């Protein structure tokens, strides 16, 4: 698999990682990449439960109120 290319430009560096990760997903079994992805996603879902935002506050942040 192609190595991750570093960049001094933050935006480019992120895009390089997106490309690297997409290649990883493409070339590895679903079970393997999803176990790694799930650590990130399950952690967010756990944190979301602690959010104290009311609907009104949330919609205001989103610019929908």
């Amino acid at each position, binding site marked *: 698999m192609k190595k991750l290319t570093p960049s001094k430009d933050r935006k480019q560096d992120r895009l390089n990682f997106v490309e690297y990760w*997409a*290649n990883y997903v493409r070339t590895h079994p*679903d079970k393997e990449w999803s176990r*790694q992805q799930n650590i990130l*996603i399950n952690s967010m879902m756990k944190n979301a439960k602690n959010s104290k935002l009311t609907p009104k506050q949330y919609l205001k942040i989103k610019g929908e109120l």
Partner: protein
Amino acid sequence: MKFINRNTIKLDKEANDLDEFVFDFINILKKHTDYVIVSGYVAILLGRSRTTEDIDIFIHEFSKDAFNKFYNELLKNDYWCLNSEDVNEIFDYLSEGLPVRFALINTTIPNFEIKVAKKILDKESFKDRLTVITKLGKIYISSLERQIAFKRYYLKSDKDIEDAKHIEELFKDDIDIRKIDKYKQLLSKSQ
């Protein structure tokens, strides 16, 4: 993951808490109307290493009666609408083409942003949608080419460009570049 035919992707990933959250909602929604998932969750379902606070869904027009049944089933399953508690008001928002958000009761994130597909481009996303077969069941997502065009040439935020890049890299052998160009042109006309 791989295409098993022109319109179907087979995905053998381990489900996460967000997937379960999405499938629980979709299992209610699909009993009442047709749908297609668009935007961020599509990239995430297909492996993108990020998360999201909302899942965007286009739906077909509801009758008032069908919407009432859908809403009542959501309430029974501990969801609430972030925009209003008045079923008539929520229905009016949807009928006017405005998006409404549903989340599990007493929470705000993550949530589902559902919107009736009214514009031609939105309606067309039903025609060439993809079925993704997962361990939790099947789910409908927008075509990859539509996702790429919409994110790269319409939404254009850093996050959207990255989502487009992920899908392009992942499915570089399957994507129809001509379709992306076609959607790009249609999107520029609609702006």
